[in-house]
């Protein structure tokens, strides 16, 4: 029978003291303990808004009557819509939607006023970019009220009957790209970007810190190598890993979630390589900054959190305040989400995609330069 020694307060306390000392020595961990809640508070408290307003809207005004004008000014003054420009053809509206410049295109048809006043209920066409159904839902719901109230003072006296129960106009909403408003269509392709961000940054984040922790860095540095050889050599194998993940998600999206794939898959795969590289560059740069593997993981988390919340993956990008959108625009995931959704749902081609792609490339280049500069060729 083994004799068990009694619990000792002194031993327990020794561990407590040691942990506090180690915590205090590891500045980064200490910073994270304070930093993570602050960042979360900022993001969840201020940046995230499930009910986006001031959505960019283009108007095709084919009828410049008084009623048409008052409808336009009502749109301009509304909370949900932000009038960005007037367009002059359907094709122009189509292109603006495809590029993601506007969320809505409102078409006020010819003879709108004429038909309205004759009580023929003219059709008002609203085309919405519904790739993210949650971004457009409330705006569309508010539209009917907006129209009725804006036409209210025109429809008095003998015309009062027109403002009847089902409204003076026929509102036709085209939810483009995702007509059924299935949120999986938005989330599953987006997930590809999220998964890649998480794993790619993490894996390479550990790459150099592991060498340092295991002592193999000393050996590596004693060999005649250049920083770029080491960094690129560590990035390339994981591009391959990234492609396995991307393929897995695409296969699931196609056959499990039946996400429509309108655009070119080769184009998507090309863009994916740029995105993977950007994330690997980020990871490798973290790796040069972090002292140990724990710090690398913490940095990954610090990068992942805003990527997840500010990229438009979980919450509509346009629902965020300007400062959050500025941060979001820097993150590669934001642009990659636009690319994935653009290609798969909208059928975007190279012309639309390149607008986002160059920003990811810029990010990758800047981050890699920092990494190469930070990579220490000596043990100093």
């Amino acid at each position, binding site marked *: 029978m083994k004799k068990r020694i009694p619990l000792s307060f002194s031993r327990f306390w020794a561990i407590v003291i040691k942990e506090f000392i180690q915590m205090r020595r590891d500045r980064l961990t200490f910073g994270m303990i304070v930093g993570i809640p602050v960042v979360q508070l900022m993001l969840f408290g201020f940046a995230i808004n499930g009910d986006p307003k001031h959505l960019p809207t283009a108007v095709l005004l084919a009828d410049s009557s008084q009623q048409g004008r008052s409808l336009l000014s009502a749109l301009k003054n509304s909370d949900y819509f932000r009038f960005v420009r007037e367009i002059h053809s359907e094709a122009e509206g189509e292109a603006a939607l495809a590029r993601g410049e506007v969320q809505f295109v409102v078409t006020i048809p010819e003879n709108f006023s004429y038909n309205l006043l004759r009580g023929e209920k003219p059709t008002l066409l609203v085309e919405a970019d519904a790739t993210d159904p949650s971004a457009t839902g409330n705006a569309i719901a508010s539209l009917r009220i907006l129209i009725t109230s804006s036409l209210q003072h025109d429809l008095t006296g003998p015309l009062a009957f027109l403002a009847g129960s089902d409204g003076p106009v026929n509102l036709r909403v085209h939810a483009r790209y995702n007509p059924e408003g299935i949120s999986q269509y938005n989330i599953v392709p987006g997930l590809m970007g999220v998964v890649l961000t998480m794993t790619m940054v993490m894996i390479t984040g550990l790459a150099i810190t592991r060498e340092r922790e295991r002592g193999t860095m000393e050996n590596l540095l*004693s060999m005649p190598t250049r920083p770029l050889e080491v960094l690129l050599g560590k990035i390339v194998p994981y591009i391959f890993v990234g492609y396995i993940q991307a393929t897995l998600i695409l296969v699931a999206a196609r056959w499990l979630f039946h996400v429509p794939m309108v655009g070119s898959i080769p184009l998507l795969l090309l863009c994916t390589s740029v995105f993977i590289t950007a994330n690997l560059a980020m990871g490798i740069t973290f790796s040069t900054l972090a002292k140990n593997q724990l710090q690398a993981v913490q940095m990954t988390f610090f990068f992942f959190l805003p990527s997840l919340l500010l990229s438009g993956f979980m919450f509509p990008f346009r629902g965020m305040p300007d400062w959050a959108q500025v941060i979001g625009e820097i993150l590669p995931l934001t642009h990659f989400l636009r690319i994935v959704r653009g290609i798969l749902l909208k059928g975007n081609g190279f012309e639309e995609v390149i607008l986002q792609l160059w920003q990811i490339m810029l990010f990758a280049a800047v981050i890699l330069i920092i990494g190469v500069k930070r990579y220490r060729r000596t043990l100093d």
Partner: protein
Amino acid sequence: MTTGFAIDVRGMTKRFGEHTVVNGIDLQVRAGEVYGFLGPNGSGKTTFIRMLCGLLAADAGEGTCLGFDIISESEAIKRQVGYMTQRFSFYEDLSIAENLDFVARMYAVSNRRTAVQESIERLGLAGRQKQLAGELSGGWKQRLALAACMIHNPTLLLLDEPTAGVDPKARRDFWEQIHELAAQGLTFLITTHYMDEAERCDRLAYLSYGNLLTSGTATEVIAGAQLTTWSVGGPKLPEIARELRKSPGVLQAVAFGTRLHVSGTDAAALERAIAPYRREPYTVQQIHPGLEDVFIHLMGNSKDNFAP
């Protein structure tokens, strides 16, 4: 190489913050020599070696290593130097053959496969080449490390405590190999704590607190210390040692097994101090001081220099 020296450096200095770890060291190592680098832990041996192969940037100092400028041509030096780190620094999750192959590729060794195979056979690792490096015992790890840092046929090998934690048989084999290779023209700079290894070196340098205290052949180093040493045997040696240390002329009294080595630089004073023990049951005789006596002496002195 114009000088015939594999290493020829002057004033090498390295500071970490306020702390001067290597303090203006001059060192000349002839080509084909086995040079021993000794000194207590933290004396700056590793830091000095790291500066030689470009792993640390020197704060001051100049000179050449294999004829290349130590400051500006560290890339060229790296290509011709083999550096064996104190701690095993190859990949534990790679096999022996994979590690060697990796290193061979890093140095762009021509006829890589042959070179790797030859190196495996030369070091008697043939039966184990598929084994993961992490599973090897200390002695085998050391063989692998040596094989790996020689795969690119370096002309200078910097070995940092290569035999720490290695059993006596493996150590002896290791040193035989070193001398064979030195006979073929390779130059070695080896740090060690073992006196028997120090005695196997052609020449020695002794470092303490970043200062080079002495250098030369073992005989020169011993002679340079001008130490007289007496060996005392008998009962209650620790008490005698305590007494002797208080006596004038005694610089150190150190237990060597069952005997006490009492040393000092003033031979006459030392003899007076020893006198009370020249009787039964003690045995006293004058001996030639060994390297160890000298090094303990040097170490004691240098501590005094640094005392506040």
